[in-house]
């Protein structure tokens, strides 16, 4: 469709997109797209190239072009893996993200089914409350939560994060799964009810198998959100070996005035890889959960 905002006024007056000429499309579509893609991807290139540059090339722009690497090295990766707690940060992040995701999905499936299908009186208000809960940002909650985490004796433990991440995961997943459950025909459930199935059986045998795509979407998104979380992890975790990747890279790899740019970039790169790999396998689920959360 030739509806690009930037299109000139009169040129494509008479036709739809497929009639516009190639040179015009080149200027209106491909050129801006190329610029967007370049700007959006350049930091990743820069991250990668820095991560494999030896230190002498890293800060010597006179003899080496910064955009390329002459002698690629794995020294930063080696440093990261064997001389820092990076592997345990990766493990912590994975552990916390998986645990928080599993808990949130189970809880959300039950809640979404209750709100969307049981339709008890007041379920609409519960649905609205869940949506409002999604809008409460962590930057408002972290101070009182820090106090609670401390009083509960969870400070500096994985459980501090596993229990607090559902505060933003449950509203999101519930909201998303409500949308999926809504799209499953009532008739299926009614038949099962008539055949004498209990609500549990309906949920387990009919609704869940039919909403596998929704579960995948919610799971992937929840995992990514937990993996990327920062402010709670920064506030509730103190000891180096309990940190998550985002916090660990930022607080442990930056020492005094000497920035280990190579190691920092390698840390950032490897910390991003798990979510990027997951994302690349499930792009469509990811996009549908992102847009699904926004569409009502």
């Amino acid at each position, binding site marked *: 469709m030739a509806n690009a905002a930037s299109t000139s006024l009169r040129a494509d007056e008479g036709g739809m997109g497929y009639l516009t000429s190639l040179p015009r499309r080149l200027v209106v579509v491909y050129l801006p797209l190329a610029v967007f893609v370049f700007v959006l991807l350049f930091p990743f290139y820069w991250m990668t190239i820095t991560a494999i540059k030896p230190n002498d090339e890293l800060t010597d722009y006179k003899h080496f072009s910064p955009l390329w690497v002459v002698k690629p090295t794995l020294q930063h990766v080696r440093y990261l893996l064997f001389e820092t707690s990076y592997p345990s940060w990766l493990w912590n992040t994975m552990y916390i993200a998986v645990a928080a995701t599993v808990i949130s999905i189970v809880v959300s499936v039950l809640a979404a089914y209750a709100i969307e299908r049981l339709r008890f009186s007041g379920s609409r208000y519960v649905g609205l409350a869940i949506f409002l*809960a999604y*809008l409460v940002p962590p930057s408002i909650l972290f101070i009182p939560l820090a106090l609670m985490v401390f009083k509960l004796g969870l400070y500096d433990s994985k459980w501090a994060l596993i229990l607090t991440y559902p505060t933003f995961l449950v509203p999101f997943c519930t909201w998303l799964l409500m949308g999926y459950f809504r799209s499953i025909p009532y008739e299926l459930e009614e038949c099962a009810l008539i055949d004498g199935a209990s609500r549990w059986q309906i949920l387990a045998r009919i609704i869940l198998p039919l909403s596998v795509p929704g579960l995948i979407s919610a799971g992937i998104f929840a995992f990514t959100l937990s993996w990327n979380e920062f402010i709670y992890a920064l506030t509730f975790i103190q000891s180096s070996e309990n940190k998550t990747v985002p916090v660990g890279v930022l607080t442990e790899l930056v020492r005094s005035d000497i920035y280990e740019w190579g190691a920092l970039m390698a840390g950032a790169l490897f910390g991003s890889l798990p979510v990027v790999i997951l994302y690349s396998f499930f792009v469509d689920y990811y996009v549908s959960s992102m847009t699904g959360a926004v569409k009502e």
Partner: protein
Amino acid sequence: MNEAAPMTLPAAPIDSRGILARLRESRLLLGMVFLFPAAVILLVFLTYPLGLGIWLGFTDTQIGRPGIFIGLENYEDLWTDSVFWLAVFNTILYTVVASVVKFALGLWLALILNERLPFKAFFRAIVLLPWVVPTVLSAIAFWWIYDAQFSIVSWSLIRLGIIDRPINFLGDPTLARASVIAANIWRGIPFVAITLLAGLQTISPSLYEAATLDGANGWQRFRHVTLPMLTPIIAVVMTFSVLFTFTDFQLIYVLTRGGPVNATHLMATLSFQRAIPGGHLGEGAAIAVAMIPFLLAAILFSYFGMQRRRWQQGGRD
């Protein structure tokens, strides 16, 4: 949609009333059981802390020392605190500029991706990458890109002969503000673009055909077909975008920690700094509470944005 609930029973009229009544009773009970875990999590870790946060704002609690109620003292202190007002100003500036630019560029990118393109799915996938990776980690990449000495941007501009010495991106107040806003925009564009693209794809091509037949040109089709059809989703997307931007913490924490001379402190980072390293939980909580009115305004804006969709789609008013 409530009336669409179990309409199973008219087929068996004999004792339908009894079954219906029993069903309704058990549905309420069952609903409570199913909602219980979610309710516990949200009440304990969301509602209660929200209330606790508001309460803390009225106390002088410090780390390791329970506080006493001091009324509005924290807010009175903040009222005369120039750093706080600077943070408010920064937050609004950051939110407004970043949101507007994110919206404009995001819409543009969405319109481009909505064109007939080869490898469209591929482009859509890679464009979303900045939003997928952990913000802190991409912010670290920006930190390196903004390095005072070895910035790749400075190097490129010097090579192109545009400037003659490296730009001090994060050292100068104005430049630092621009730099963090640019990084926020970089991260936010994909979200806006991909969600708006989803909205664009639901607009029926026949509307464009009809508009074309009526002699509408490209701009008119955009202005009178695309934009009105997209308004409801724009309202929601931008509310989320504003909420995320307004409460942003990570980017600033990585890039500047609020410096130079507090020029990039946002309310969230100031709240953190006073509460956690500073130890003044009460004061930090008061700053966090001060963000709530702004967030409510954004939510109401979204609510009325959503309201529009009903009459727009010819539904009930």
